[in-house]
């Protein structure tokens, strides 16, 4: 059952519906497709997605409980890792799971084109939630 809660942004109140996003199954299928890419899939000798990376990406997506969250693009990274990227209302968010580092590197692109990037532990679900909040409400 989904339920609602309100979060305030600087300019207005926004309601985010909680519940599994409708795109979750197709996103998990995208991860499975990427995991099936052979070694050297990029033409530059990159390894296959590891079992650990696949599991981390799956867990990250499964932890996203906003049904309002738009469908992401999911892409493999040369040298290892996987990136999940969104666009919403002129904002962009990239979350890259870095191979072997237990780390996420993020990029935020604001409506005016300014960017902010950084990294945090993959275990820090609050940071992931804060970034998704930003994507949805600014």
């Amino acid at each position, binding site marked *: 059952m989904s339920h609602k809660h309100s979060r305030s942004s600087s300019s207005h109140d926004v309601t985010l519906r909680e519940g599994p996003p409708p795109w979750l199954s197709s996103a998990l299928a995208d991860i499975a497709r*990427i995991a099936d*890419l052979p070694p050297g*899939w*990029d*033409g*530059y000798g*990159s390894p296959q997605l590891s079992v650990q990376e696949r599991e981390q990406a799956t867990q990250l997506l499964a932890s996203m409980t906003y049904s309002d969250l*738009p*469908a992401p*693009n999911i*892409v*493999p*990274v*040369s*040298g*290892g*890792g996987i*990136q999940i*990227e*969104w*666009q*919403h209302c*002129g904002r962009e968010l*990239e979350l*890259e799971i*870095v*191979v072997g580092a237990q780390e996420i*590197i*993020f*990029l935020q*692109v604001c409506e005016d084109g300014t*960017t902010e*990037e950084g990294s945090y532990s993959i275990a820090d679900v609050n940071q992931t939630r804060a970034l998704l909040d930003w994507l949805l409400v600014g």
Partner: protein
Amino acid sequence: MDDAPIRRVDDTTIPDSAGLWRRIPPSWIVLDKETGEWRLSSVAFIDRRGELSVELASLTTMEQSLARYPEHRLTEVQAIVFRERGYGVIPDPLPDNPAHALVSGKITKTHAREIARAAIWVILRRPSA
């Protein structure tokens, strides 16, 4: 002991206007949700192993570049696009690919996004729906 990778020096004999080609596997072409158009993901210019492999366009052909990768696309970025962001361009010829070169320095996500948007398609095949 410092384990930091050696930062190789930019080869200034490669002109700023030199075209650098990078092969693009289908999985790096994404649907832009706001424009509805296919575009290049920023990951096309990130390699977590360090330096980014490219080819000097003047030393190869589209056919040679894609000979072993029939599903891949090809993009071109001018050397100055990397240099303006602090990266170097270094020839790195390989036995089977004399056009091979490297972009030195760890490309940030912001820069990778900018470079992806500056890239020009040399060969674009849209992903099948």
